[in-house]
């Protein structure tokens, strides 16, 4: 009899496959997620919810960036994006994209730059 193989998957691919139910990328509103997008919970975790979903909701009671969530949950961006897409669709979290310095419609946002500047000068 051969020695039983260890059930670990060093690449983490199996775990990701299970977490995402085999989906490789997010659809809908989550496809525009940025590493600096803030995620904010809009509802409590539901009973019987997938552990990772509940964990995201718990951590995002205060706004947290996608990058921070990824670091805390040890999940790569694309896997996390699939999980966030589920929560966004269910209305359990809200996503706020980073504010760009230049809005296509309004032009440069001088007030925003002024706000950032005074914040930095207070450091």
């Amino acid at each position, binding site marked *: 009899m051969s020695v039983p193989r260890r059930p670990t998957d060093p690449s983490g691919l199996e775990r990701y496959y299970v977490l995402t139910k085999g989906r490789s990328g997010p659809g809908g509103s989550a496809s525009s997620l940025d590493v*600096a997008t803030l995620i904010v919970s*809009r509802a409590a975790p539901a009973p019987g919810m997938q552990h990772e979903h509940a964990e995201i909701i718990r951590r995002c*009671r205060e706004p947290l960036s*996608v990058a*921070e969530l990824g*670091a805390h949950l040890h999940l790569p961006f694309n896997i996390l994006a699939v999980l966030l897409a589920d929560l966004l669709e269910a209305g359990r979290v809200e996503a706020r994209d980073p504010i760009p310095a230049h809005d296509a419609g309004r*032009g440069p946002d001088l007030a925003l730059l002024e706000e*950032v500047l005074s914040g*930095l000068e207070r450091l």
Partner: protein
Amino acid sequence: MDLKGFDQPGSAAAGETRSVKVMIAGGFGTGKTTMVRSVSDIKPLTTEETLTQASADVDRLIGVADKTETTVSLDFGKISINDSLVLYLFGTPGQERFWFLWNGLFKGALGAVVLVDTRRLASSFRAIEEMERQNVPFVVALNVFPDSKDYPVEEIRDALDISPHIPVVACDARDRTSSRDVLVALIRHLKERSAVVLESR
């Protein structure tokens, strides 16, 4: 919506908080992670992107049949600007050949700092080219290492072949105030650019 036993929405600030992002670019070993670390309010973190599909494309290009998985890392930190605004700083991946895989890495960024080691100017050429190609506004920060020679800024500007309106500042990436001053120089530069755009309307 079930909010029972859930303390959210809590503070008024949490309800309105938004983010902005700034990229820290530059060649390998120019001090990107050091700068993120010195100026961040939080202990800097790393987030990872697993690139399976994209690396498959690369593999095809070089004639390798097997699909491989590549992980690129982004070091990042954050600065609280005020109660409702957070600045995220992202150090670009050390392996520059993966930059193009970072879909939208620079999209939505206010701008970028390109760090330059004056002892190895060429290591940051690629980063500068990339900012110009992606039309990302940037400042150049000369990270002064203990054994760096004192170069006149104009000489370095010539060597890097950057246009005269782009600010070049010296800094010590290990120092919080010095790194903060680089970010201040970037935001001032962005304001000046914006003012020019607004005046020309």
